[in-house]
């Protein structure tokens, strides 16, 4: 219960923003004025800046005109006009298809899918058109100006169709990028990078953090590089890798582990496709242990890709099998959400290992209490 309360009732301390841990977010210029913003306000700021800095950029999707169901598009239509910020009919394949066409003509199309759970009608457009637009044309054409934003992930009461984490489907598509921010400050910088990246990007926003996460966000125009993971907490005993809202859970786990004398290194992947293998590899070569955690169901989840890659690259340095603590292989349940979620108290399946030394045994046992 405590974990449940911890998850849903407290305003979050954003991972990586305290404890003197290394922050590597780049800022565009020297002195910065910051403002305390939640996630949807940070996204909103990024969109304002994007539209302001490129007159041939557009924001559209269902209900975007009045500000959007999560208020991410507040004030845009009033400021930039209904020709650039507008509602679309209720049709995801049309929204994305239209966005591809706009982008193909050299515009920036920032498209909103109301919930990631509803992105599937657009999957054909994303996979067969957006992802292949440049390649199939021999670089005569591209739709790099396309960015698809969608709220994803658990929200406490979302059930099957307001909680999904579909990132794994998209990570399997060469030609697009998949980006997931962990906090307001990160979201603004990553979204601006995604919008300006010359490739189509799918940008998943952790909806649970829209209001819950508050952080000091620089007010100016800044970008955070894609495909660069960040070590947000240094450690020496085990590497933990995650993205989005799950990092707040993982950071809590790291704090708990610290009390037991386990030093955890926490990495925010940020970009899942193409992902920064080098940072994770360097970390695991140092710690010898890897634990990956995501809300999406464990089977076929993106954790499997990370696990396989790290095994290939770090096999001789690993002191334990790679562990994945993820959502279960069920549709996302309502009443059972607290049981489904990879909360910090969840038993890791990798705790059932045999290991000779006392130290490692303690550590593995610690895993089972960690997550």
């Amino acid at each position: 219960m405590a974990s449940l309360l911890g998850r849903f009732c407290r305003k979050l301390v954003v991972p990586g923003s305290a404890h003197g841990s290394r922050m590597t977010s780049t800022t565009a210029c020297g002195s910065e004025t910051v403002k305390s913003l939640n996630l949807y306000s940070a996204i909103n700021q990024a969109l304002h800046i994007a539209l302001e800095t490129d007159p041939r950029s557009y924001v559209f999707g269902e209900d975007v005109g009045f500000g959007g169901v999560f208020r991410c598009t507040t004030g845009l239509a009033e400021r930039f006009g209904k020709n650039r910020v507008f509602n679309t009919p209720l049709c995801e394949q049309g929204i994305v298809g239209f966005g591809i066409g706009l982008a193909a003509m050299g515009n920036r199309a920032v498209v909103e899918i109301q919930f990631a759970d509803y992105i599937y009608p657009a999957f054909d457009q994303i996979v067969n058109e957006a992802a292949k637009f440049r390649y199939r044309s021999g670089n005569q054409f591209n739709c790099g100006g396309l960015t698809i934003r969608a709220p994803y992930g658990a929200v406490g009461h979302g059930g099957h169709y307001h909680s999904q984490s579909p990132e794994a489907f998209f990570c399997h598509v060469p030609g697009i990028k998949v980006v997931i921010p962990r906090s307001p400050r990160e979201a603004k910088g990553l979204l601006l990078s995604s919008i300006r990246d010359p490739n189509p990007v799918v940008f998943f926003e952790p909806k649970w953090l829209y209001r819950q996460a508050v952080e000091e966000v620089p007010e100016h125009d800044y970008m955070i590089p894609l495909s660069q993971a960040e070590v947000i907490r240094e450690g020496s005993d085990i590497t933990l890798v995650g993205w989005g809202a799950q990092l707040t859970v993982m950071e809590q786990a790291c704090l708990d582990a610290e009390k037991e004398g386990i030093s955890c290194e926490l990495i925010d992947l940020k970009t899942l496709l193409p992902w920064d293998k080098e940072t994770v590899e360097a970390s695991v070569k140092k710690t010898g242990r890897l634990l990956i955690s995501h809300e999406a169901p464990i089977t076929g989840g993106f954790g499997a890709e990370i696990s396989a890659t790290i095994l290939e690259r770090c096999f001789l340095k690993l002191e334990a099998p790679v562990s994945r603590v993820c959502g279960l292989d069920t549709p996302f349940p309502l009443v059972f959400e607290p049981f489904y979620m990879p909360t910090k108290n969840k038993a890791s399946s990798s705790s059932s290992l045999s290991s000779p030394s006392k130290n490692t045994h303690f550590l593995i046992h610690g895993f089972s209490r960690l997550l």
Partner: protein
Amino acid sequence: MAQHLKSSSKSILLNILRHNIGFSSPSHASRHLRHNLPHGPLTTRLSPNPITRYCNTMVDTLSSIGSHEDTNSQVMDFPGGKVAFTPEIHFISESNEERVPCYRVLDDNGQQLTNSQFVPVSKEIAVKMYSDMVTLQMMDNIFYEAQRQGRLSFYATAFGEEAINIASAAALSPDDVIFPQYREPGVLLWRGFTLQEFANQCFGNKSDYGKGRQMPVHYGSNKLNYFTVSATIATQLPNAVGAAYSLKMDEKDACAVTFFGDGGSSEGDFHAALNFAAVMEAPVLFICRNNGWAISTPTSDQFRSDGVVVKGRAYGIRSIRVDGNDALAMYSAVHEAREMAIREHRPILIEALTYRVGHHSTSDDSTRYRSADEIEWWNKARNPLSRFRTWVESNGWWSDEAESDLRSKIKKEMLEAIRVAEKTEKPNLNHMFSDVYDVPPLNLREQELLVRQAIKSHPQDYPSDVPL
């Protein structure tokens, strides 16, 4: 009985509303309802909870009911506008009694119909149109044969649809952006794509603008404003709408044009695109080549509407049905449509009726699902080339000599184009990895190294015509 019902329904409504203004309890009004409600089958029309049904339009209905005593002229405001009531239970028929007529200028024999309206074409345009139709047909023939001989992996012809291909292109400007399906190479041909360029793509050599990545007939040309073909059906339709919107916002004197077949009109993207085009007021032409077949599926297994033209109205789109084998009719329809689209910022749907004379592709033998007689009839009696040739000749602009000169010239050019394309080496291996993204990411650079190592160890397992 009906009259009694009407007035009592009205009085029920009035009573409910009057009581609602003064009283907040629904039970009072519903007590009234039970009291006054006549019994009979039509009483089920009123919902069990009349308060919730009517109260959100209360203000409007009160005023309109008060002023219109005659039931027949009662009008009600719903979101979306006023609609008149009807006391008759009448279902709109699933189809009109008569099919939408088909616009044509030339009869089956190529004689201009006496009262036909059409946009005149100059000698120069007419001759280029006819020549390009011949070129398209010959190109298709020769590439088809090349595939049969094993020199090409695949090909798809546009036999029977030459008028759609060329006449539509002729009526457009070079700035209009094209989103093709895959049976419209004639549009590229009209705009100046050479036979050599077609051959390069079909052979996937290093001069192919697509860098050898796709099957034959998947052409694309940014300099000719022709977006690269993708085999997925109808996915180009919503893209065209977005492109059209861009042209409108940039205030260009141009429109987007997208082609698709009768089969394509069943895809979800068709409905998505038309709806978006209407709502966004996008200057886009939707040109449907209704050629009767989607591979082996005839239109009777594709839809039950009067073809595709009637679907336009469902989305609020102006539409026309044209004889797709009549070059002049196609030219005029596209010409007019383009002007409307750009001037009025609206989409237009054009259904061009035609017939797919050829097989779906070289992987298909259409005699397995349709009679050879049927194919032959369309090839002879409704041939777009012969009809247009008759008209062009009737103006004194063409002759047998011109015909044979053209044909021998094209044949020579085609054979040379194939010879050269076949000889030209394939694109370099590094083009497998380029253009996935603007810049190859690390994982692709690593994979290229691995592939090159594998080739080095086992060169005999890999094709030798791809330079490394």
